[in-house]
Every structure is written in C-alpha cells, then in structure tokens.
C-alpha cells in the first residue's frame, strides 16, 4: 500500500558562483513514499514551473546510483542518511510527514556552485587528466590467463574502481579533502600489473594536481568512507600515501 507524506524543504538557492545564495522554504505535499528523493524534487520543480518560478537546479543522470552525477547534502549528510546510496537511490520512505529537510550543495572551494544544488566537479576530471589512465592501447585481446592476478588483488582493484566520482567524499570531509577520490583512482591502477609501469609518475602527478586545485588535507576523520555511496575504504588513502612516498623518495621520477 502506498502512503503519501507532507514535508517542508529548505533548499539552497544561488543564481551562480558570483552571487550570494540563501535558503528558501518550499512545502511539498502529497509526496508518495515510493518516490526517490530526486523525483520528489521533480514534483516541487513542476509546481515551481507552473507558478512561473525558476525551478531548482540539480545534477542527475542515470538515477540508478551508478553514474555519479547526483548528490546533495541532506540534513548534513552527503547523499542523505542511508548507507551506500546515492541521492537518486534515497527514497522518501526514509522520511516522515511533517519533517523539515535541509538540502545544500557540496561545499568546497574546488567545487564552485554552478546554480542552486549543481556544482562544478571538473576538478575531479583534472585530477584524472593528470595521470588517472594507462597510456598504452589495449591491443588485441590477450589470453585471459596470460597475467595471473589473485582474487584478493582483483577484488581490491575493483573496489577502488567502483568510485563513481560523485564528490561525496569531498562534501563530507570536514576538511574538503579529495584524498579518497584520488586514493581510489591511484589504487585501481597501482594494484594491477598493467598500472605499475607508470605508478610513480601517476602518484606524483595526481597528488600534485589535487593540491594545486585547493582541496583540503585528509585528517583521517573517516567521514568519507562512511558517506561514500560505493563504500570505498580509506585503505586506498593509505595506499596512495605509500605510492606517493615511494615515488617521491624512492623513484627517479622528479
């Protein structure tokens, strides 16, 4: 049986990065608890459009929790209160009638606000461009067992590669640090033999780019791994540290 709830929303509205923003209050009534959080905002936006007002801007794409486009801080929690979910996979059944929900954009100097809840996360792309790739072509398909990789290592690499680049780690970090993202991206290559030839170059380049973009510094607060929708572990940050120190102090790469 479906149930409907009435909620109050306090949503951050901001025209662009150059003007000051502020909270505006909206009432959403008769919201089905089967709706996702984004569908709920869709309903609010439809009404705003009918009223001739500016709809709330927010990022979204697949709405299946795998693309990494959506995300907002809901009542102080990145992607809302549920564990291992993106905002699009958060459902209204986790809220009760009469609740007031505060929705804010990711807040970080490196993620300037485009409009309302949409932020510019191209800083992540710049970190990837700095070294988050392997610069050889795959070529023809080799034998699947040509390079043996243990199940444990394959799992770890896959866990790191599960990062969808949503930015929740930066948003939830008390220091707005991007080290979980960068750690995951460095780890997914560092763990596998194909990533080793460029490991030192990659670690140095990606960390330097991350620093240059004015992200904060990890304080090992562990908020990121709790909020990450893909539950990526901070052991990837430790691996990044090892890779960086190995590259910086032990390799010939400048």
């Amino acid at each position, binding site marked *: 049986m479906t149930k409907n709830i009435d909620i109050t929303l306090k949503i*951050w509205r901001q025209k662009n990065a150059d003007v000051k923003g502020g*909270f505006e209050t909206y009432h959403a009534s008769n919201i089905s608890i089967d709706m996702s959080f984004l569908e709920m905002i869709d309903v609010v936006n439809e009404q705003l459009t009918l009223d001739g007002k500016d709809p709330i801007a927010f990022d979204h794409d697949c709405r299946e929790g795998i693309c990494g486009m959506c995300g907002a*801080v809901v*009542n*102080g*929690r*990145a992607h809302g209160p549920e564990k291992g979910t993106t905002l699009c996979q958060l459902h209204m059944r986790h809220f009760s009638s009469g609740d007031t929900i*505060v929705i*804010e954009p990711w*807040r*970080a*100097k*490196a993620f300037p606000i485009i409009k309302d809840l949409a932020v510019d996360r191209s800083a992540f792309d710049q970190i990837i461009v700095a070294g988050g790739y392997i610069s050889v072509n795959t070529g023809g398909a080799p034998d699947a067992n040509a390079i043996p990789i243990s199940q444990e290592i394959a799992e770890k690499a896959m866990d790191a590669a599960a990062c969808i680049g949503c930015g929740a780690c930066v948003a*939830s970090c*008390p*220091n*707005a*640090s991007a*080290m979980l993202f960068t750690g995951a991206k460095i780890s997914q290559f560092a763990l596998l033999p194909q990533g080793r030839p460029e490991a030192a170059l990659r670690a*140095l380049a990606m*960390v*330097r780019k*991350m*620093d240059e973009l*004015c*992200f*904060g*510094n*990890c*304080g*090992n*607060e*562990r*908020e*990121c*791994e*709790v*909020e990450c929708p893909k539950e990526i572990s*901070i*052991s990837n*940050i*430790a*691996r*990044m*540290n*090892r890779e*960086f*120190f190995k590259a*910086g*102090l032990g390799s010939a790469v*400048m």
Partner: protein
Amino acid sequence: MNWFTNTFGSSLGKKLMMAVTGLFFCVFLVLHLAGNLTIYMGKDVFNSYAEHLHSLGPLLTLAEWGLLIFAVIHISSGLLLFYQNFKARPERYAVNKRAGGRTLGSATMPYTGVILLLFVIYHLFNFHFVDKTHTTIFQIVSNAFAQPSYVLIYTFAMIIAAVHVSHGFWSAFQTLGANHPKYTPFLRGLSLVFSLIVGIGFGFIPVYVSLLV
C-alpha cells in the same frame, strides 16, 4: 622546486612530517611517563631518577634540541594544514551531522594541539627553566602541586593530551600508509588504550602529589 620540496611541501609530505614527529612525541610520552611514575616510589627515587637523567649531559641536550626541532615541524605543518583546510571550504554547511567516522579526538585535533602547545610552554617554565641549585625536583613539584590551581591546570591539560593522542596515534600509522585489515583495528584500539594510559598516568600524578603535601 626540486624533488625534496616537491615531496615534503605537498599535502602528503606535510602529513608525513606530522605523523613521524607525532609518533616520536608518543615515544617521548612513554619515556616521560615512565620517569614520572618513579614518584610513586618515594621522593628519593624520584630525585635520583632526575639526577640520572641529567647526568646524561650532552645526550640529554641533544634529545632536548631534537624535541624542539620536532615540535617546530609538528606545529608549523599542523597550523599550515589547518589553515589550508579552513580555506578549502569558504562557505560552511548550515547543517552539520557526523556520519560516524569522526571522533572527539579527530574533530578537535587543531584545538587540542594549540592548548597542548600553550601547556608545554607553561610546563617548561614551571619545572624546566627554574633555578634548581638549592632545591630538589621533588621539592619544586610538591611546591607547585600544593596549589590547587596547578593541579587543576595540569589534570585538565592531560585530559586534552589524551584526547589528542586518541586520534593522533593510529592516524599517524594511516598517514604513513600502514593500513592493514588485520592490524588497523588493533592500532585503533591501541590508540584508545594509549590515550587512557597518558590521561590517567600523567593526570593522576598532580592529584597524588597534592595529597602528599
């Protein structure tokens, strides 16, 4: 910039320096506590511990300078990281809620750190930079802790130290890259045990001395 400043000047480099110096301070705390605990064996044992320590001469001076240099590194990189972190989020959240990662220790590191810095300066002026020609260290300590304000300040400072190391100890290992599914949970537990040892071990001494006099 050359490779050296490129490595140590980076975010991870500063964190590395924090971790290495912080772990040295943990070792220092253990040694300092071991020495202080001799006070429970009576004033003669305590005084002779101090004499033996000072008979080390140049070795002790070397250790003191080492500690001073490490303190400068720990404090300056800590303040720099704190400033950068502050700048990394110009607009704060209206609603802040912990997801379950943050602890009392981790959330207060810069603040407990600054309090500890002030305490260390105060402590050195109480017991280190004093004229010790016609008196013993036990006399200086018992004179100080005869005053309730000293007992209060010292006990409070040791609670702060315990909070600081509760996060600092395991955090240093994580920063050094020592994260392991088998040992990290143990280190996090050890961090709490260590903070209790520091808090109770150091914190009870002023109370004990004040009860003696």
